[in-house]
């Protein structure tokens, strides 16, 4: 179910030393066409019913994930569960402000996730910089660097807000509007330019999967 025709040119991986370029893949991401009709609806339902959250606490918002995944606000009820490896998780929760050093890891982990993949961004600082609007080390809006599906405002968002955010994400997925992966592949150059504009020492592959 993937169209082979628009396969883009291989990446240069100029960030890497020449002897290491062979170790990494140089294929740029490409778009994947969704399945047909009812089948895709069924898939989307399944995706929305089993959201595996990548266990990467990028900011202080991660502290409210603990109550969320433990017995008070039990997110397992909704089929949401943490997953330690990006390969198997489908939701990336950006827990608040992202410093440049963390953004590098965010991009890397996001690209390693298998699509369809969804991003939930917590806190005002991911929306417009929030409290760190004049900080020299935190980015101001995360959607310049990776596609975001749901924002949850607040500093910090309460577990109830997180839950409603996840339910909103489910709705979007079921409607088939959560095509962040394809969007990333479509505007790959733009995203990559933004990323390289901020991450000064780009010493990793241009697209690592």
């Amino acid at each position: 179910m993937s169209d082979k025709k628009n396969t883009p040119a291989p990446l240069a991986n100029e960030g890497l030393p020449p002897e290491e370029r062979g170790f990494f893949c140089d294929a740029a991401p490409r778009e994947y066409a969704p399945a047909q009709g009812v089948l895709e609806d069924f898939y989307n339902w399944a995706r929305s019913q089993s959201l595996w959250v990548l266990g990467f606490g990028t900011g202080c918002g991660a502290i409210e994930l603990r109550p969320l995944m433990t017995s008070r606000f039990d997110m397992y009820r909704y089929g949401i569960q943490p997953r330690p490896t990006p390969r198997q998780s489908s939701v990336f929760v950006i827990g608040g402000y992202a410093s440049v050093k963390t953004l590098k890891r965010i991009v890397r982990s996001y690209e390693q996730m298998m699509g369809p993949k969804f991003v939930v961004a917590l806190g005002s600082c991911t929306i417009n910089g929030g409290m760190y609007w004049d900080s020299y080390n935190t980015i101001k809006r995360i959607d310049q660097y990776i596609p975001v599906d749901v924002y949850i405002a607040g500093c910090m968002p309460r577990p109830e807000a997180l839950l409603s955010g996840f339910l909103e994400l489910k709705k979007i997925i079921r409607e088939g509007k959560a095509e962040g992966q394809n969007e990333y592949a479509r505007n790959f150059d733009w995203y990559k330019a933004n990323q390289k504009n901020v991450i000064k020492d780009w010493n990793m592959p241009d697209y690592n999967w």
Partner: protein
Amino acid sequence: MEPSILLRIGYAAISLFVITNYGLLLIGSMARISAKVQGRVGQPVWQPYIDIIKSSAKRNSVGHGVMFYLGPVFRLAGGIGTYMFIPAVFGSVVFRNFSDSGDLLLVMYFIFFGQLGMALGAGEGGHPYSAIGVSRGLAQMTAFEVPFALSVIAVAIQYGTLDITSIVAAQQGGFAHWTLATNPLAVIAAIIAFLGMSGHNPFSVVIAPQEIPIGPPTEYQSNLLGMLQTNRAVFNGAKLVLYMNLFFGGATNIPVMVIKTFLIYFINIFVGQAFPRFRTDQSIRFFLGVPTLIGIASVLIAIL
């Protein structure tokens, strides 16, 4: 009369289908039970189905060479092979599988086979945590195979055969004939080995999320992961049925099978929720200690 081979294959497919669904539901309900221990509501019972559908519905996937793809295939083959040579329900035509053409040794071999295939595949994955997980897993497996093998030897000596069907047949006729009653030491050793085999706490160091997230399957995604999840259900079911046959008098119909296997699997959760996990060296030391002695004792009892 003996059904034709095609008919038997059809029957085997039916019983495989049943055991897969049963295994999935078992996993789901056990997750719910452990959630209750933790004071949670817990995931829906059918969550494993959705997870498998979701994993298989992933759009792209990353490979690391042929062995990487073959790992889950071997694992699944091991699981199915294990199940195929065990009579799920004693005396039933549909659920006897191919138990008459294979015996206990073959089953034990299949239990190994899946793990080894997985080890090869995960090693190909190239993730350091996979390598560590594989080494831990194999080390621990060789450790818990010792008490398991000993108890199996005890059973074989006791009933004078390696054929599972006749072992079950010998246990018919009430609780007094079960291995649990006739040779309890063998059962104890085997149950301890079972804890290690099913990889719950305290023997979950293979996939320890806090230490080596998450061990051998770290690199596996999409449909490969779905395959592993399916295998988990089949393999659990097969092991449970095997234990039920060897030690708990088998089952003459489906409800009895369900009840017995559920109770056997419940032991895992019961122990797993109450304990942290051993380190690899500690668990090996543990398995080669008391459980091995119990196993030897059970063999001696069987001989005498």
